[in-house]
């Protein structure tokens, strides 16, 4: 095993913190999954907005939360749902849900990107540069 340096200490602290934030994000998305207004799903989670395979795959366990993520983006940033035709879905949900979704995405995406970057740095540090 290599001798641990300050770089390793910093890498460990940041990695564990970012991973902890990811765990919190997953708990949060689970809460949002159950809070998702039924009206949105009844109106938009069907053909022609989604393909039959997508509807089957993203219903229930274990991939149901991906559907929540999709709608959270459509509600937070309505223009993102234009290609599927769900840009007006935000009108069916409370304003707080849209705002919370927006802040969640703004925090979640950089957090996940940072974790991926740290994984690549870790791979270089511990596998390639031993």
């Amino acid at each position: 095993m290599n001798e641990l340096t300050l770089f390793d200490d910093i890498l460990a602290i940041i990695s564990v913190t970012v991973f902890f934030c990811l765990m919190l994000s997953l708990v949060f998305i689970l809460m949002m999954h159950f809070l998702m207004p039924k009206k949105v799903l009844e109106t938009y989670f069907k053909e022609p907005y989604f393909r039959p395979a997508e509807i089957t795959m993203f219903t229930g366990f274990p991939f149901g939360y991906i559907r929540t993520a999709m709608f959270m983006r459509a509600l937070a940033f309505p223009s993102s749902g234009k290609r599927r035709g769900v840009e007006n879905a935000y009108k069916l949900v409370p304003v707080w849900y849209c705002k919370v979704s927006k802040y969640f995405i703004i925090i979640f995406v950089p957090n996940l990107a940072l974790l991926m970057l740290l994984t690549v740095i870790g791979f270089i540090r511990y596998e390639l540069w031993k």
Partner: protein
Amino acid sequence: MGVGLTAACMQIANTTDTKEKNEIFVETITSTAVGAGLGTAIGLFLISNPIGWGTAIVLAVGSTAMSYGTGKFLRNMYDQYGEIDFVAGTGVDRVCK
């Protein structure tokens, strides 16, 4: 996901060393959580980009490789810094024996 967790549980059960049990636990939890996180990211992407099977397979393989890599990375971190006994603390050792 269930298969991975069951396999990890069996690995924990078949290992006597406490540190190795914890390393398996950390690796499994990390790769599962990162897989779920990447699934969320794919969902965020899918709403604006309906994709075909080819792209879906590439995304699935990419996220699997990434979650595996992150699992290994944090296992390495635990190997170097880990002192907390997660397996005993969470009661996993009582389930996986």
